[in-house]
């Protein structure tokens, strides 16, 4: 647990996209997923990752159903005005330090959805995520590769699925 806390602390010092050296250590971490208003494409791929035989637990990745015990807040979707209070509430409920992951083009910068009356242009501009995973949608393989980098497991092992 000390290691993961150290990792998160390192991530929050604003080092992006290069990850701090401390992330090379092996470990496990947990995620709380919030779909902040997308087409469900990334959310469905995360569902595939969790239940489609990709075995994320094998790579030290656990999904939690409450934010309080999660290490990372995982955001998919474009960040609608209506979902931002929910995102903030989830973030506030997490133990510190905590990390923020933007998965998919929408969560990163809005993707095809630029700012309008209903949406923000993703997280970019509001906050600097600890990790951004590009894609539309993000595939389970891309997701595992990116997160394996955090854990120091190496991308290749994550490809096995």
């Amino acid at each position: 647990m000390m290691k993961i806390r150290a990792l998160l602390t390192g991530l929050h010092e604003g080092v992006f996209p290069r990850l701090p050296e401390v992330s090379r250590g092996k470990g496990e971490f947990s995620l709380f997923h919030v779909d902040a208003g997308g087409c469900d494409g990334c959310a469905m791929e995360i569902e595939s990752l969790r239940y489609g035989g990709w075995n994320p637990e094998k790579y030290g990745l656990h999904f939690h159903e409450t934010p309080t015990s999660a290490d990372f807040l995982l955001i998919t979707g474009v960040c609608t005005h209506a979902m931002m209070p929910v995102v903030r509430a989830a973030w506030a409920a997490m133990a510190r330090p905590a990390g923020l992951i933007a998965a998919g083009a929408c969560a990163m910068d809005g993707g095809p959805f630029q700012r309008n009356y209903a949406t923000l242009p993703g997280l970019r501009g509001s906050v600097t995520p600890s990790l951004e995973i590009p894609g539309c949608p993000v595939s389970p393989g891309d997701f595992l590769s990116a997160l394996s980098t955090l854990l120091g497991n190496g991308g290749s092992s994550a490809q096995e699925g």
Partner: protein
Amino acid sequence: MSDSYRLPATVVSSGKKLRSVKEIICQGEKTSPSWAYLLGEYEWRSLGEVLEEERYLFSGLWCDGQRILALFRWRSGEVLMAVHVPEGPRYPALSTTVPAALPFERVIRDLYGFEAMGAEDMRPLINRGAWPVSWPLALRPGLAGCEEDDFEVRLFSDDDREFLLISGPASGASEASALFRQSVSDLKVSGSETIRGFTHRGIAARMMGASLEEAVVLAGRIAASAVVAHQWTFCAAVEQISGFQISESALLVRAVFAEIERILSHFRILARVARYADAGLPAQRMSEAREAVLQVFSECMGRRSLMDMVVLGGVNIPSPDIEDDVARIGIIHDLAKNIADLVDESLFVLRPLWQSYPGLLVRLRGLGPVCSEDVMVRGVTGPVARASGLGRDLRSQASPWVNAGMQVQSQREGDVVARCRQLFAECQESARLLNLFAERLTHVSADVPLRHIFHPENGWGHAVTEGPAGVVEVVLHLKEGRPASVMMRDPSVELIPLADRALKGVMPEDIAAVRNSFGFSISAADM
């Protein structure tokens, strides 16, 4: 509902009794397009009254900023559009006789501020009070915020046997971003309400003035579970305006994609129902079967997503190493065959597992029943309607399915078990269709391209397709080659209130299984 808005069931015009929707609409002043008629307030009210006898004709209601437009579709495929210009901020509600119109009326109020007089529920539907303005698409938007949430489902007593269950919009689970509220009395759901709008992205508004290519991309982001259906329907509306027909090979490829999308969607629903019914093994096997389909798709197409493969004028098959369409058709042929074989093999194992898994059917039988009358009144389509005895499927009338010997299956019971049985049956039929389309692809003319570039003309178009969850429909007005007005209908709009009704009487531990058996997409309903 206020009685002051009710009129006699028959309407008299110029001494003649008008009894049908068509008669009333066609009495209006002709306007553009040729299938649209301008109705005054009295005629619009009359339309609402007569609709009681022909509710199934209602297809959609939207606003273009100044006018309220309603679409009616007959089983023959004929469509008529009624157009009404409100003199003030109100217009007579159609939902007084057609419950299916209510969500549309609430959305119009949220976005444009026009209020449907006589509607029994005018609470915000998609405005959750977080937008910087209210009525954002009105000529004069209002101040920020909206009325405080006035939930329909609440507790009315201090009885210990009554409590509220609230989940969402972020549960950490796979369910979409909506707030689900259920009141529970004596350990059974006594009321259910789905609060949505959290995923509203203003897709229709974004399409206004966008290029058609951008609009097709946006149509593909309405809901990932119905990408092909929405992009196909949008493209078909544009193609209809221009009188353009895609090639036979492109039509077959679109149909292959549509069937793959149906299989992926149905497998996901079945996996979720099993998971929420605590049937771990069937849930895992269904998810893995879905993943296997995606792996085959990925191997053939180099990607896992069906997004942006249906484009204006045909299909887009991204294969950088292959330049000619004959080779591309070969890839689609192999894709269709491989997925058909895989689905056949999967169903051979999964169906018996589903039926024999200890306690699964016993738990789900009789849960969340929906009767055929409710389905008709609410304009519900798709597998949920077919599981309640309404055996309609638009594919059976559309090319290339029309000559495919399609057997539209249906169930009678209308409960979760019937809905799941329907999904299994449709997957089996999709596998058969994939084999058939693969065979047809070997005979199509090799010199016909998969995509024609054409120049869209201005005008109005209408298109309708059968998506995985039901009917997807588009009415589109193109001006200077760009969308000037658009209505997009997704079946989830009708499925969500139907699911809420079906949850009454369900035990709390079965709520998620019942809800997921309806297969709706919150993202699609919110847009």
